[in-house]
Each structure stands twice: as C-alpha cells, then as structure tokens.
C-alpha cells in the first residue's frame, strides 16, 4: 500500500517538533531548572536561621555549676534548668540585663505535683488545696534539692513499676527487704546510696535449693541446674516464672 504524500509530510513535521521538544527538555534546559533542590535548600536555610530560644543545660552549667551540682544529686536531677526557669538563650547572651523567671508562688509546683488521676502511679503528688494552704512551696522544699520532709516508708512510692510487677508474681508476698537491704541514706539520696542486691546462686538457694527448709518454694538441685549461670540471668526475680 502506498502511503499518501500528505501523510508523510505531516509525519516529518510531527517528528521534527517532537525532536525539538525532547532536545529542549532533556539537553538544552539543565536539570536544576526542574529540580526541587533549590527551593528545598532555601527552605532549610530559612529553617536553620530560626533563633534558638532554649540555651540547653550545658550552657546554664557554665555559670551556675553550684546549682547544677546540687540539683544533680537530688530528686530533680533529670529536670533541666529551663523546665522551671523558662527559655534562657536571651539571658545567656546578656546575663546582666535579662533575668530568667524564677517561679516562687504556689501556682507553679502543682503544674507537675498537683494530684491528677492520669499521672503515673508513684509520681509524687499533693492536693494543692489541702497541702499546707497559703504557704509557698519553697518555704519547706528547696526546688534544687527537693527532699520530701517525710520520706516515704514503702519502696513502692518510687519503685511503683517493680511493685506492680511483683504483685502479680509468685514473689508477691515477699517484702523488698527479703532480697534488698536499703540504708536510710538511700531514701534521702537514692543514687548516692544504692541498696544492695544478691550476688550469688546461694542467695536464691536459701529457698530454692533441694536441701532448703522453706517448704513452699519450688526446688532445684543447685549443682546440676543451669550450669554456672546466675539465677537472675534466666529468671527475673520480680516476676520469677520459669522461661
């Protein structure tokens, strides 16, 4: 079949136009004109130029080392300065004329320590209406080393998560002091005076060895059971189901 002349002509025109467009798009115009790199790069530049408002605890420490060290030894050790004193970059750049906030009234501490049922169990909370009304918190508690005037008697006051786990286990009836001995100092400076932990297989053996006088505890032969592994390498003592 003979292709009509006018079809060939229009075919040539279409082919030429197509070539021109393709050459323009892929050879003449550089890829940077289509790429999103440049506007993204300018966005990142703008984002990086945002002024920093919170200086960070390392900056605070350079001048306020004493307060920092005192805080680091107490219950508030995990709280950075700016959590209470507000954003401090402006103060850090111009310490004389700009002073950070120092909340001293009764409104501030209950932001964290007021009773709220949704707060995790064990977190220290008070009822702001009933707890020493009118008196400012700092009259009794030093915010940089907030020792509670009355130390909690139960270990669960701080170790609520372990207490809840243990309550479900076969060790539920054992008090913490069966295995741990905590000094009085531990209640004042928990990290400075750690309670002791059992150190060997013989400790668990007091109840669980085959010659133990404890009747209710399950028995194993210490010489044959579990090679030289320590008991708690396989059994979690706060939830000691065999695994």
């Amino acid at each position, binding site marked *: 079949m003979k292709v009509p002349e006018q079809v060939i002509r229009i075919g040539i025109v279409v082919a030429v136009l197509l070539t021109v467009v393709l050459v*323009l798009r892929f050879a*003449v*115009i*550089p*890829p*940077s*004109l289509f790429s*999103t*790199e*440049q*506007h*993204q*790069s*300018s*966005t*990142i*530049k*703008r*984002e*990086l*130029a*945002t*002024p*920093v*408002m*919170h200086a*960070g*605890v390392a900056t605070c420490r350079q001048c306020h080392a004493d307060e920092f060290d005192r805080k680091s030894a107490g219950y*508030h050790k*995990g*709280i*950075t300065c*700016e*959590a209470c004193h*507000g*954003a401090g970059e402006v103060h850090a750049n111009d310490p004389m004329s700009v002073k950070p906030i120092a909340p001293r009234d009764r*409104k501030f501490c*209950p*932001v*964290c320590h*007021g*009773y*709220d*049922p*949704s*707060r*995790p169990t064990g*977190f220290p909370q008070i009822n*702001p209406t009933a707890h020493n009304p009118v008196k400012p918190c700092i009259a009794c508690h030093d915010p940089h080393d907030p020792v509670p005037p009355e130390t909690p008697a139960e270990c669960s006051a701080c170790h609520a*998560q372990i207490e809840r786990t243990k309550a479900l286990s076969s060790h539920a009836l054992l008090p913490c002091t069966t295995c741990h001995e905590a000094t009085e100092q531990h209640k004042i400076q928990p990290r400075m005076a750690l309670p002791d932990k059992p150190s060997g297989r013989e400790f668990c053996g007091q109840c669980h060895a085959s010659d133990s006088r404890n009747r209710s505890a399950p028995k194993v032969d210490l010489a044959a059971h579990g090679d030289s592994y320590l008991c708690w390498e396989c059994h979690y003592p706060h939830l000691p189901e065999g695994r």
Partner: protein
Amino acid sequence: MNKREFLKDMILFIPAGGVLHALAQQAHGLAAGDPGPYGSDYDPSDHLYGMGIEVEKCIGCNRCVEACKIENDVPQEPYYFRTWIERYTIGGDGEAVVESISTQPQPGGDPGPEDRDILRTFFVPKLCNQCANPPCVQVCPVGATFQTKDGVVLVDETRCIGCSYCIQACPYGARYLDPRTKTADKCTFCYHRIIKGMLPACVEVCPTQARIFGDMRSRASRLMRFERMNKINVLKPDLNTEPKVRYAQLDGEVR
C-alpha cells in the same frame, strides 16, 4: 497569523531561547558551587532523626507545649500546636474519652470527670510523626512540603498556598494553618536546634524524660538504646506511614 508574521516572531523567539538557556546554565553553575544550606561540616545523609516517647512517664505538665511555642514562635492561642498532650480516660464501659489538655490555661489543676467509673487513665504526648511515607507530602499540589535527607518533613512557607489539603491528609492531626501567614505549619523536630547538636525544645524541658531524641543511624544514640530496651509501637501502623516517633508502653486505645 500569516507566514511573514510567524517568521518575524521566530526571529525574536530563538535568541530569547538562547538567553533563557544561558540563564539556566548560570543557575545550574551556582547550584553546583554552593556548599548547600548546611555548610560543609554537616552531611544530612549521615543522620536520620527520630523521637521516642515513654507514655508511662508523661505527667501531663505541658512544659513541652509551652517550650515549643516559645522556641518556634507558635501562636499562643490554644488552637495552634506543634506538640500537645492528650488525656485518655477509659471508663468502666470500656469507652475511651480523649481530650487535649494543652487547651487549658492552667494544666494539671483539673482532675477531669470524677463521677465516671474509670478503668485507667493516662497522658499521651503527640506531635508530627515525621513519617517516612508522609501523606502530607503526597497531597501537596505545589510541592511546598518535603522530606529532608535526615528524615524531617518541612514546609516551604514561601511556596505554600494555604489550601489546607495537607492538614486534612495528616492522619495524626499534626498540622495547623498559621493565622498570620495563612500557610501550613508543623513540628520540625526543632530543625534549627538538632542540626547544631542540641535537643528539640520539648525534649530539653521534659521533667520526667518521657521524650527521648536521637539519631537512628547511630547505634549508640539514646533513641536506639530506648528502642532496644522497650517494646515499641507507632500510631496507626495500619496506614503504612512509617512514623519516626516511637511509643513505648502504648495503650491499645491510643489512636
């Protein structure tokens, strides 16, 4: 148009194309010589940022929300948040009630509905999940929102046309329309801070370390340690958004 006019226009058009070409080449050359927005001593492909949230540690004090608003100049009205805290209350009938406590001017004071039979109740910090598959980036009609190489989703406020499509598309409700610029805005993980090696403002001020920030490309980072030590969940995993905000001890009711 007749043939004469067409040829006249072509005489003008071809040199104009040449000028355009020259300009484009010049722009390309500029881009190649530029060290990039980060400067020479930071390579974004070496990092991938993420956040870990330990739900059981959150006390709902809103310090993070206030710090975020100051750090990022978020409008103070209680409708605009880059991060916020939700209170979940699961009643005896098993029904979960969710409320944002960040809208209250004085947090922590209101113990919530007392007359309900409460099964369990807790706080959940929320923020942009910096998804690896971000729906907001997919739907933006002008390409104003994008992912950086270190995994943070940013908004170009000069390109954004304020159509709010991304706000609708975000399954986590993490975006808002800034009333001053009429453009979409969201959490940036405090991009200006993390590039300098600082922590995001919310992580910096969290009094109970409920928020952990770190680099997923470094096995020694606090975030990777957090992910080794905890059972990790993400929000709405069924959407395949692959969030980089990871939750530990996340209750099944949390959406």
